[in-house]
């Protein structure tokens, strides 16, 4: 197991254990936190490369990454595959994936975008991002309408920019 492949759940457990013997494990705690951080940072960076919205903050991607990592942590095969993928990205350049410029990140992801770990995060990432109410607000999707009586009286036919009838292309 490389340091990158520490799961968040595993890391939290390690931290709790280590806290009882702080002197002996001081360095280990630091290393674990750093590994978790790197995994989350790389996952967040990967999500930003896959779904680059200028209006979404780094904190937003970080939050989605943490949710994703929490989900895959429950599935040993999935976390192994995800960690393998992050290792590929981290190991393919002079610096960790998360620290690279966006253009380099994109180039690296293009090389691995058929890998199962990327397809998995793309699919689940789309659900986590595009089911988020703040993203709906950002793109102008209004969600459930039943409680407001639908859109019948709320703009279902309010379009005002169309050319008049009779025009021809």
């Amino acid at each position: 197991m490389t340091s990158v492949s520490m799961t968040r759940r595993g890391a939290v457990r390690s931290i709790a254990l280590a806290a009882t013997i702080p002197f002996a494990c001081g360095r280990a705690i630091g290393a674990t936190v750093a590994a978790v951080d790197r995994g989350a940072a790389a996952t967040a960076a990967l999500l930003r490369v896959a779904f680059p919205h200028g209006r979404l903050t780094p904190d937003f991607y970080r939050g989605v990454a943490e949710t994703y990592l929490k989900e895959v942590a429950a599935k040993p095969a999935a976390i192994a595959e995800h960690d393998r993928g992050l290792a590929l990205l981290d190991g393919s350049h002079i610096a960790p994936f998360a620290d690279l410029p966006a253009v380099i990140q994109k180039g690296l992801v293009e090389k691995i975008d058929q890998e199962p770990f990327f397809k998995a995060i793309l699919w689940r990432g789309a659900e986590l991002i595009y089911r988020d109410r703040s993203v709906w607000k950002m793109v102008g999707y209004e969600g459930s309408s039943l409680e407001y009586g639908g859109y019948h009286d709320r703009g279902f036919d309010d379009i005002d920019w169309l050319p008049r009838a009779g025009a021809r292309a």
Partner: protein
Amino acid sequence: MTARFNLNDSSVFVVIGSGAGGGTLSNELAQKGHKVVCLEAGPRLSLTDVVNDEAVMFEKLTWLDRRMATGKPDPNFPVWNCKTVGGTTMHWTGACPRIEPYEMRALSTYGPLPDTTLVDWPVTPEEIAPWYDKAEVRMGVTGKHGLPFLPAGNNTKVLEAGARMCGYTDIDTHNMAINSVPRDDRPPCQQLGFCTSGCAVGAKWSTLYTEIPKAEATGRFELRPESMVTGVNLGADGRVESVTYLSKGRSVTQKCRAVSVAGNVVETTRLLLNNRSERFPNGLANSSGLVGRNYMRHFTIQVMGVMPGKVNFHRQTHLAGVVRDERIHKPERGFVGGFLISTVPFTPEILAKNMMIGGWGEDLTSVLDKYDHLAGLLLTGEDPPQLSNGITLHPTERDGYGLPVPVVHYEDHPNTIAMKTYAWKVGRRIYEALGAEKIVEMGDFIPATHNMGTARMGTDAKASVCTPYGRTHDVANLFVSDGSLFPTAAGCNPTLTIVALALRQAEHIDGEIRAGRL
């Protein structure tokens, strides 16, 4: 009100499935005075279970038992149909075009097409016309029989404006089985924008809250939800004498007078193929070898346009906007048959998932960033029958019921590929005419919702599975009542035709029972 029948009551007519075909046939037979037991694999929801959330409703409505595919479809989710009382009438959009006479005479109109099994329908357009009338009245189809059309929403107005600039003229808000006025104790459409997740106000026709309760009110109908049929059992005389199903882990057998299978194509096929006997070694009613063959689904491709102004396409009835001009037979276009152009919206999530098949990154997010400026259209076209497209049973894989997993095999015919290529260009032109900033063509990624052809009707028992009334050639009291019956697919949504055929079949069955033949 609702009846309770004894398992040994051999006078009941058993209907398997409660959707467009099964729900309608059940009610019609009960109305005509016959005792009916309807076995539905899924649970019975009520309108209060329907919420405006696609992800939640997908889990509640969809048939999620394991299926496999080879060829073009998604290998794990080839078909999108429902497992719930009401069947796929919960998920459907409500679009009710009739099959055109030229399409019912497919072979005569198109001529022989290589590698297809094109035929003319054994039911003539003249014969089915009054049944279409009856089905439209029953379902409350807009723009027919005096019912007003639905109002045009933004996505429809964009489609209409662009289409008119391209010279198209046959345009309106479609013939929809969605109330445009209060009717049938159901309210009119409120433009919720969640048609395919179950209509939360019940404005859209679904057998769950139309045919099923009406059948129950006769006192001659019993719905048994969560009943997965595994066996259709023949007596020594070669007729069906009972049906066996799994209910809460228990195997139950109901005696019967006759049976109709309306499980939507995949389940209907699986049930027949999985019931092998000495008499039918290749599956029940399969002496022709055609059960599960000639599987058809329409292509459903999309074009999205980033328009110069806001559209908010999520705010309207999904498919209430149609251009019919390309649904003609005009071989100069390079293919036979035609297609419909309808409106379609997507939620951000589904749009992203469909687009992701083509890529990720800015190609994806630059479109999603303009979500409120998007207009969307759906292109749905005729799919010729091919013997090689079909549904088989996996030799070893089993689902949660212990039943063989169905394997769907499907490939596009060259005619379909030519029609799709043309249709994408048509869709693109419509939005270009209005100055779209960006246009996205999306492929055939939605799992098939229109399923047809695997127990085709015909007069020749060697070349078809069912008679023109949907009775199997091989078993005198076994019927099929879903899209499996379609000999060809036509270029339009199949539900209205399924309902019309079920009504016609009910009259036939009623006559047979009264004549002492069933």
